[in-house]
């Protein structure tokens, strides 16, 4: 049976909401695909576009950023700034040759364990559908 393609997904989870949401999924025994490599950040506002472009360069097939719902941010405005930054980064990545569906931003609160697993599953399927970036590192676009 051919080994099915397993996409590499990097997940930047904001410590106060999404990371807690992932914990909630875990404690309530809700499974979600193991393709995601979670990186905990204090706030979605902390994520520098350089981190995302660097993740793609180092071989990620998809990057997920999850933060608090607008208005719930532990630092009051972190996700507002982040929203603007990623609103620009997404079309820019697409313009550079990385399908914009490989980069997704979701607001997941600490109580939405179930929703977190749905987000990760749907995103992993989406990236699997897009397939591996399949570019030799030497010629890789990012």
């Amino acid at each position, binding site marked *: 049976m051919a080994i099915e393609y397993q996409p590499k997904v990097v997940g930047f989870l904001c410590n106060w909401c999404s990371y807690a949401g992932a914990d909630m999924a875990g404690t309530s025994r809700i499974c979600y695909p193991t393709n995601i490599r979670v990186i905990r950040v204090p706030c979605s506002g902390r994520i520098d576009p350089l981190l995302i472009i660097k993740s793609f360069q180092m071989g990620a097939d998809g990057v997920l950023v999850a933060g608090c719902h607008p208005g719930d941010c532990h630092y009051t405005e972190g996700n507002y700034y982040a929203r603007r930054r990623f609103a620009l980064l997404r079309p*820019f990545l697409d313009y550079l040759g990385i399908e914009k569906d490989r980069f997704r931003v979701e607001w997941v609160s600490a109580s939405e364990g179930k929703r977190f697993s749905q987000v990760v599953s749907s995103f992993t399927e989406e990236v699997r559908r897009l397939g591996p970036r399949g570019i030799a590192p*030497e010629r890789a676009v990012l």
Partner: protein
Amino acid sequence: MNLAEQIRNKAKELLESKTVECVIGYERATDGLTARPLFVYEPEEVGKLIFDQTCTHNLVKYLLNRRDKATAIVVKPCDSRAINLLLNEKQIQREKVLIIGVVCPGIVETSWNQTSEKLPARCQLCRQHTPVVYDFLVGETPPTEPAVPKPYADIVEMEAKSVAERQSFWAEHFSRCIRCYACRQVCPGCYCSECFVGQLDPLWVGIRIAPSENQVWNAIRAFHLAGRCIGCHECERVCPVNIPLMLLNQKLEKEVGELFNFQAGLSAEALPPFATFQKGEKLGIGE
């Protein structure tokens, strides 16, 4: 009196009255055809100052080397937006800078020992013939501001391509990059004391001049200028391997315009797009 004479008289007056220590303008280059930046310190040297269609350089970045010294500067309309950018980001003090604004007749594309009659891209997209900020104005104000033809035509054309086509387009261009950083050194918006490229720990972009590192460099350089690039096209002019850098900057300029209705360099007070937000704005992110 042509533009050059008006500039020379103004420079002589400013230097003799000691209002400024130095006037930054243009002089004839050694090919006898194009121009190059000139720093005038003595009134009797103003004779070297020229102004014609080959004065393409954006001189505004030189103000960062003279932050606490009174300096006069010759500025075209597209360059003048860079002054607003630096004022907006608190890099220069308005009272230290005396701006000799030039009503721009349009410049020509130049390279070493060559001038082509083709109107450069920055003039085709010219939004103002008169500088957005000046202390003295040289040249007559034309009756009507130029109507911009279809803006971002080449960007829309790039967006129409498939993702794979764009991916190989950029891979091919970026693989020629030799990381000379002339695009960074000439850009008025690029003045970090330590560029992320020079950082060792964490190592964002290694010293390896290879396609993968080149792409991270070019992508992040452009993104750091999102909402800040004033469209003076200097980066594209100085690139030794002809990488279409403005295709990157203008894509971001177009997106920033559509998403946040903001244009760089038009005012020294307006908050730039990433320094502010509206709570309820719908940006198609996380909805």
